[in-house]
């Protein structure tokens, strides 16, 4: 039925022939025309999708950033780069950018922190390659997702599993000419050849370190060690560097994992300090192609295991502070030793790491907004990258006042103790004591004070 009949009175179809799009052959594995067989298949896929999404959700990485790719002729999709597009947000506050599923949640490993470990009694499922490809394409065309994030439990051996992951990516790219985002997990222990093959189709690849401390990793995941994680990381790095070299000579040489790689660490499952975690992150960021380190507050999925701590709630605040510290390293030119050191191996849960650094180093303040370098302004609590750039641009035209700063979006509640801008004669962090500033900033007013300007009429009940 042409669309004309659907929206009666449509004025725009005059002269337009409803040409059937030059679409690719249809793969209708999942949804059929409603007869009994396909109805059953649909139910089946629903169940599988539920199980495999629930198994995959503890992996936090979900970004679709890092690659810019336009659509090709006859293809589907593009990748916008920049910060990527999040298509939805789950009720736990995390974004849904990619279809994050596992190919299977059967696993031969028995890692204590993982929900899919061998010894867990959970529903298991496996998606076929064609089912998954169909799901991805149909979701993508409805603008539900930006691409696919594919991971898998290890079945038989790492190579067998990895090969199936590669097949999904290859089908999407070659058969369906899919130009959306693909994030592939590299299975620890997979061979160099398979990682090389995967890199040609994936935008980003990742191998999870899981635990910053190797001894804890061996204790909680007896089949894994750090070497099995670093080896595929090196393969990816090597492939990307070779490809970059190649593309310098031939413009059309294939890209290899253009969005680089990422990794993830679990926080709070073993006894590592924030210093251990952040030092490792910092070392990883120094490597080429490492774009993101994710921190995942340990969600107690396997409560009965004696090797794991008993938590009432996942360490969400600690996780948040780690991300803030991560941002300081990536965008605020902080070194890891400045954020955590021997005296302070853990991040302050009460205040954010930037404020915490500022309170420990009052000698760097106050910063003169009208004269100081960009780097110094970046270090002021309450001023972020955006405001710092605005300040540096605007002060060429005239002196900036605290009023201007507020208009530009600086958080003056925090910044006021650390800056001077000529007119502001408030008391800074050096006049007040850092301890006093901390208490001023962490003190929460429990109830709103009555407005002083408003006349308050107290109608007391008269005694009868």
């Amino acid at each position, binding site marked *: 039925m042409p669309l004309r009949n659907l929206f009666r009175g449509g004025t725009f179809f005059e002269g337009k022939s409803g040409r059937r799009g030059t679409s690719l052959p249809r793969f209708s594995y999942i949804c059929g025309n409603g007869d009994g067989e396909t109805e059953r298949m649909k139910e089946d896929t629903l169940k599988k999708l539920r199980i495999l*999404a*629930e198994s995959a959700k503890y992996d936090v990485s979900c970004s679709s950033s890092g690659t810019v790719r336009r659509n090709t002729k006859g293809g589907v999709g593009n990748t916008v780069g920049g910060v990527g597009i*999040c298509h939805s*947000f789950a009720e736990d506050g995390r974004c849904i950018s990619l279809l994050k599923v596992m190919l299977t949640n059967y696993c031969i490993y028995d890692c204590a922190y993982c929900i899919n470990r061998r010894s867990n009694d959970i529903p298991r499922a496996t998606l076929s390659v064609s089912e998954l490809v169909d799901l991805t394409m149909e979701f993508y065309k409805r603008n539900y997702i930006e691409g696919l994030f594919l991971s898998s439990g290890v079945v038989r051996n790492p190579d067998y599993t990895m090969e199936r992951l590669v097949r999904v990516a290859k089908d999407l790219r070659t058969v369906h000419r899919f130009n959306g985002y693909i994030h592939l997990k590299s299975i620890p222990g997979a061979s160099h050849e398979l990682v090389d093959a995967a890199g040609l189709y994936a935008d980003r690849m990742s191998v999870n370190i899981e635990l910053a401390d190797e001894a804890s990793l061996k204790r909680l995941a007896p089949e894994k060690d750090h070497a099995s994680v670093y080896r595929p990381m090196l393969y990816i790095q090597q492939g990307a560097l070779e490809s970059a070299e190649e593309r310098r000579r031939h413009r059309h040489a294939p890209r290899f994992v253009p969005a680089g790689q990422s990794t993830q660490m679990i926080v709070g499952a073993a006894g590592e300090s924030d210093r251990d975690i952040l030092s490792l992150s910092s070392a990883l960021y120094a490597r080429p192609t490492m774009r993101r380190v994710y921190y995942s507050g340990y969600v107690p999925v396997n409560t009965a295991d004696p090797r794991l701590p008993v938590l009432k709630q996942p360490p969400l605040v600690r996780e948040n502070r780690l991300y803030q510290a991560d941002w300081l390293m990536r965008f605020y030119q902080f070194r890891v030793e400045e954020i955590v050191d021997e005296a302070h191996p853990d991040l302050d849960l009460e205040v954010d790491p930037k404020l915490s650094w500022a309170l420990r180093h009052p000698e760097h303040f106050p910063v003169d907004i009208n004269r100081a370098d960009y780097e110094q302004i970046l270090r002021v609590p309450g001023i972020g990258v955006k405001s710092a750039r605005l300040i540096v*641009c605007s002060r060429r*035209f005239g002196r900036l006042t605290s009023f201007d700063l507020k208009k530009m979006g600086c958080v003056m509640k925090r910044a006021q103790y650390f800056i001077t801008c000529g007119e502001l004669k408030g008391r800074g962090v050096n006049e007040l004591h850092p301890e006093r500033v901390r208490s001023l900033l962490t003190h929460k007013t429990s109830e709103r004070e009555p407005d002083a300007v408003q006349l308050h009429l107290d109608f007391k009940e008269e005694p009868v």
Partner: protein
Amino acid sequence: MEEDWVFAYDRTWEGMLTAVFDAFSRRCFPVAFIGEEEVRPLFASVHTVLTDGERAARVFRALQKKLSAQALTCLTVSMFSELPDLYIHLFRYVCKALTAEKSIETNFADPDVLFVTNTYRKVCRERLRMMQFVRFQKTADGTYFAMIEPDYDVLPLILPHFSDRFSEERWLIFDRRRRYGYYYADHQPVRVTFDAQDAVFRLPDGRLTEEMRDAEESCYQELWRTYFKAVCIRERLNPRKHKKDLPVRYWKYLTEKQKP
């Protein structure tokens, strides 16, 4: 006392540039802008700007010498916000830019520059939100259909994105509030409108009825809802952040928030 002037214009970019031309040639600078159809104010003189392509082009050429391409984009894109407060700020921005020695585009301490830049940012955010939250449904003839109600008129801004992304498909994105849409077929988007009694206005939350839909459509919607529920970690529920990232006003047209 000098009298206050108010300019009435057609709310287009060319109209704004013509207004700048008029202001300089008549040597009177308005204190406010109103739309052509709006009620005239009592205590001010009104000058109606007659949009003139030639004059607008002249002002634009002068502006190009004073501002970078990026700043010009910022000016034109901010127009899509349709905010009534914007116009006077925009006017003053253009006037200042024309008279200034060097480009004023990075002087964010200037209230007009800051206002226009912030409006530009708001429009960009809305544009991104539409790129995120457009949900297509497949119709029985294979066209993908989506209904939106953005805060600002961003449909023309998201058009290049979807034209590239779904270049082989036929699709229709319809802005219900502004009553127009774009239909894309044969690699070409066409602006379309519908009659007031058309079926498209009888879809309460933009959902196609059973006979309009493709046979598989409801199945994939169900799959998506299932996925949306499954991917949430119950131990980490954070409804405040959820509503911040996914404001409730967009829920109406989101497949995952609709009831099956």
